[in-house]
Every structure is written in structure tokens, then in C-alpha cells.
């Protein structure tokens, strides 16, 4: 094929721009512009309208961030999502290893089973947990049987219930990300380590685990970002008595109608979630990407 023919396959660049523009306008209009309002309202000290946008003040920052209740909510948000992330990673690690080496048939069946909960209504999944963890549910009954004191309302309204819900939510992401990482580990490296006399523990700690750290960080940060962001899970399993950042934003925005406080907290959440994702991918690309795949 001649160069001219190759060039003429490409439409002129403005055609590409025209076809991308509607989607870009939609994202900017539905997400970008509203986020500007969020910042503007966070800089107000009270529920003022647009006409009051000239009075920019940090009073709201001082008031919200000096409230110990807010810090307790930050701490709980971090605690439940970190715990859920650790549990989810530990559970997905062996499953992802199995998946990464399984036959094509087994893989696609497992993916169907592991991914399909992501497509099932989150309210339906949470109702399942409300039944299992609630008063008279299977889980409190088992816990009581083995000697734990369980309150009459079951586990609903405890941090443990939120953690269970979050693990359920983020596990599929853990399996997916770790599967990608494991598939990047060439089987010949394992054979080479074996040939050089590596025992099981040396093979794991000196070869497999170091090669999976990048994927692990990626998976954990994605799970953590979902964990701190999700609203429905802590709202229903925390039963309104275990507020986390997302439920506090909802309450300040729609129940107490304290928009400046809600906006400030929402900005903290957005920055936190983005830092988790961007920070993790930066660390991974700097330190842990397998050398020859980087090029």
C-alpha cells in the first residue's frame, strides 16, 4: 500500500473532533461545570444564592474542619474501607492466581460468576445483607452460637456490617486487577526459579509476590476508592448511626441543608478518591512495573 493510501484512510482531523465533541461536552456539562459550583459554594459561609458568590471566605473550612465529629467520620470512613480492602485483597489473591492459569472455559465461567454481582442492583444486594445480617439473620445466629454477644437488631448498624458490605462490593475489582497482574507473570520465570533451586517459600516471596505488588497496589487503591465513595452500603448497613463521609455529605446536603459544609466535605471526598487512584498508579509506574513491559 502506498503512503498516500494510508493517509487517505484517516479522515481529516476535524471530522474526529466533531465526532468526539458531543461526548466531551456531555462530560464537561454533567460533571465539570457542577464541580465548579461545588467549589464556589464551599467558599461561602452560609446557604447563599448565586448572587452571594462574591463573598469568598474560608470561615466554612475552619468551622467544618475544627469539628471533632467530622474527624471521627473521616476516621471511620478510612477504617471501614481500609479493612474491607485488606480482606478483599487477601480473598482475591488466591482466586486471581487460579483464574490467571485456568483453562479458557473455567475462566469465562468464573468471570461470569464473579462479575455478575457488579451488574445486579446494589439495593438488591444490600437487601440480601440486611436479611443475612439483620435480626434473626443467619450470620448473627451463627455468631451467637459460637459465643458472641449480638444485639437484638442483629449486626445492622455496626461497622462490621459496613465492612461486610464493602468487601462484597470491591472483591470483584480485586480479582480482576490481580488477574491482570498474574497474567503478566511469565511461567518461564517460575520454571527458571525452580531450575535455580528455589523452594516454595523462596519462589513465592522472591519471585511471585514481588512481581504482583504492582497489581496489588492498583487493585487495593481501586477498592479503597470505591469503599470511601459508595453511599448506599454504609447508609443501609450503618442504619444511620455509623455515618461515613458519603452519608454525612448526603445528610448535610439533603437533610440539614447545610450546603457549604456538604460541598467542602464532597471536595475532600473527590480529592481523596482521586489521590488514591492517581497516587497508586504513579507509584506503580515508577517502581513496580515489570521492566520489559514498560517499553
Amino acid at each position, binding site marked *: 500500500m502506498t503512503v498516500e*493510501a494510508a493517509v*487517505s*484512510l484517516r*479522515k481529516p*482531523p476535524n*471530522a*474526529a*473532533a466533531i465526532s*468526539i465533541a*458531543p*461526548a*466531551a461536552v*456531555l462530560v464537561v*456539562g*454533567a*460533571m465539570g461545570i*457542577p*464541580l465548579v459550583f*461545588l467549589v464556589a459554594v464551599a467558599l461561602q459561609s452560609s446557604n447563599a*444564592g*448565586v448572587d452571594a458568590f462574591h463573598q469568598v471566605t474560608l470561615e466554612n473550612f475552619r468551622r467544618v474542619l475544627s469539628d471533632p465529629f467530622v474527624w471521627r467520620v473521616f476516621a471511620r470512613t478510612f477504617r471501614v474501607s481500609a479493612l474491607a480492602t485488606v480482606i478483599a485483597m487477601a*480473598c482475591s489473591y*488466591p*482466586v486471581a*492466581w487460579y*483464574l*490467571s492459569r*485456568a483453562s479458557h472455559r473455567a475462566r*469465562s465461567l468464573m*468471570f*461470569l460468576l*464473579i*462479575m*455478575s454481582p457488579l*451488574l445486579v*442492583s446494589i*439495593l*438488591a444486594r*444490600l*437487601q*440480601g445483607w*440486611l*436479611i*443475612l445480617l439483620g435480626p434473626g439473620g*443467619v450470620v448473627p445466629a451463627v455468631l451467637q452460637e459460637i459465643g458472641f454477644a449480638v444485639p437484638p437488631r442483629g449486626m445492622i448498624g455496626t461497622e462490621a456490617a459496613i465492612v461486610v458490605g464493602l468487601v462484597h462490593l470491591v*472483591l470483584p*475489582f480485586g480479582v*480482576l*486487577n490481580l488477574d*491482570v497482574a498474574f497474567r503478566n507473570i511469565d511461567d518461564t520465570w517460575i520454571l527458571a526459579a525452580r531450575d535455580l533451586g528455589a523452594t*516454595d517459600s523462596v519462589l513465592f516471596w522472591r519471585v511471585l509476590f514481588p512481581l504482583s505488588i504492582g497489581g496489588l497496589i492498583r487493585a487495593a487503591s481501586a477498592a479503597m476508592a470505591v469503599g470511601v*465513595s459508595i*453511599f*448506599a452500603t454504609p*447508609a443501609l448497613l450503618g442504619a444511620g448511626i455509623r455515618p461515613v463521609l*458519603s452519608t454525612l455529605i448526603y445528610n448535610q*446536603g439533603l437533610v440539614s441543608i447545610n450546603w457549604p459544609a*456538604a*460541598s467542602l466535605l*464532597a471536595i475532600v471526598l473527590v480529592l481523596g478518591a482521586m489521590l488514591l487512584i492517581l497516587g497508586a498508579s504513579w507509584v506503580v509506574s515508577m517502581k513496580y512495573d515489570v521492566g520489559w513491559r514498560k517499553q
Partner: protein
Amino acid sequence: MSPFRHEHPIYRLAAILVVAFLLAPIAVVTLASVTRTSYVAFPPRGLTVRWFWMALQEPNFYKGLVTSLKVSALAAIAATGLGTLAALGLDRSGPQARSILEPLFTLPLAVPTVAIGLALLLALSLSGIGSSLWILALVQGTLGLPYTIRFVSTAIEGIPRHLYWAAQDLGCPPRQVTTRVVLPIIRPSIMAGAAFGFVVAFDELTIALFLAGPSLVTLPVAMYTYIEYSFDPLVIAMATLSIAISAVVILVIQRTVGLEALGR
């Protein structure tokens, strides 16, 4: 057997336990929806389909279902149409444009929905525009956009270059290469994108809560507010119906691009 052979039974056991954990609440909801008792019972006592009929006759759920079907259909159309166009455009863009646009199109996944919901509530009320079914549909369509773009982009990248050359050699003008070569090949991915865009909007709760009004109550919002007051077999039956709708969509995606595509 070496513990690192994937055939080792420990991995199979872990996989079975994880799958059981993931499917447990879904199975429990489905089973609990047929109980004859008027309170939540698991395992269910007796067998009845009465709750399904009652759930569909409950005005809040019925209206919510109708609203959700409308909003989700519009959202799916918006996400699929604009996403396909964007994917076709991205394929023809240089690396510089892509490095700006690709992060922009992942923004809807990166920003927590509770922040998007609040931001939209502020923007729509302070600007005086107000909320409407169309706005909710467009916003929820935006949430599906990253997926439709990803599905279609992956399909376009998979088209062998020699098909373009063949079309060209046979005298097909460039514009028709898109309509007569590219589009037929990527059709399954477009359908998967539409299915996924629909289900994303159909299940979306948080933004819909912020934009809800007396005449704009989607099914998730109706179910959420119902559960806050009472948790009974009626709402469980409604949840089971929504699982059934998701199941259809899962099948469509599995048949077209495979669920693995969701993770890429």
C-alpha cells in the same frame, strides 16, 4: 503437588468460597421474595408469588419502575450514541489529543457519585434550571459513557487493518468504510455498551436521590426510601424483579463482548 500449580485444590476451594460469598445475598433476596409470611423470613416459609403482584401494584414502585425505564432507556441511547461517536473519533485522533481526552472520559468513574449528585443539585438549583427527567437521563448516561467508549474502542482496535485496505482497493470511499465495514464489525460491542449503559442508569441510586422530586422518583429511589421506613417482602420482591432485569443484561453482555471486558 506444588502449591503454585493452579490445579492445587486450595485455589479451587478459595474460588468456590469467594463465588459463594458474592452470590449469597443475591440468592437470599431471590429466595426470601417467595415467603408466605408478611415479615422478612429466610429461609422462606411457604411459597407464593403474591409479593410480586403486590409490588407492581404499589404505586411508588410502579411509578418508579416506569420512570426508571424511561430514564435508563434515554441514558442508554445517549451513552451508546455519543460513546460510539467518541470511540470512532478517538481512533482517528493523534496521541496528544488522546492523552487529554482519555482521562476526561474516565472522569465519570473517578468522581464519587455522592459528590456529583450534590454538585448537580447545587448547580441546578442555584442556576434556576431545576431538575428534570431529561437532565437525570443525560447525567446517568454520562456514567455509562466510559464503558461504551471502552467497549467500542476495544472492538475498533481489534479490526484487522487489511479489511480497511480491502475496502479501499475495492473502491469504497472513506466515509463508507465506517458505515459498511467498521460499524457491522463493532455492532456487538455497541449492543453490549447499550445494555451496560441501561443497567448502570437503572441501578443508579445516589445521583437520582439528589435530583429526585415529587414527579421524578426512580425505582432505586423509591426502594431506598421504602427500606428506610420498613423492610418487608414487598420491597424484596421488587428487588428480585430488578435482579431479573439485570440478569437479562448480563446475558446480553456475556454473549457479545464477555464480562471480562468490564475490567479492562
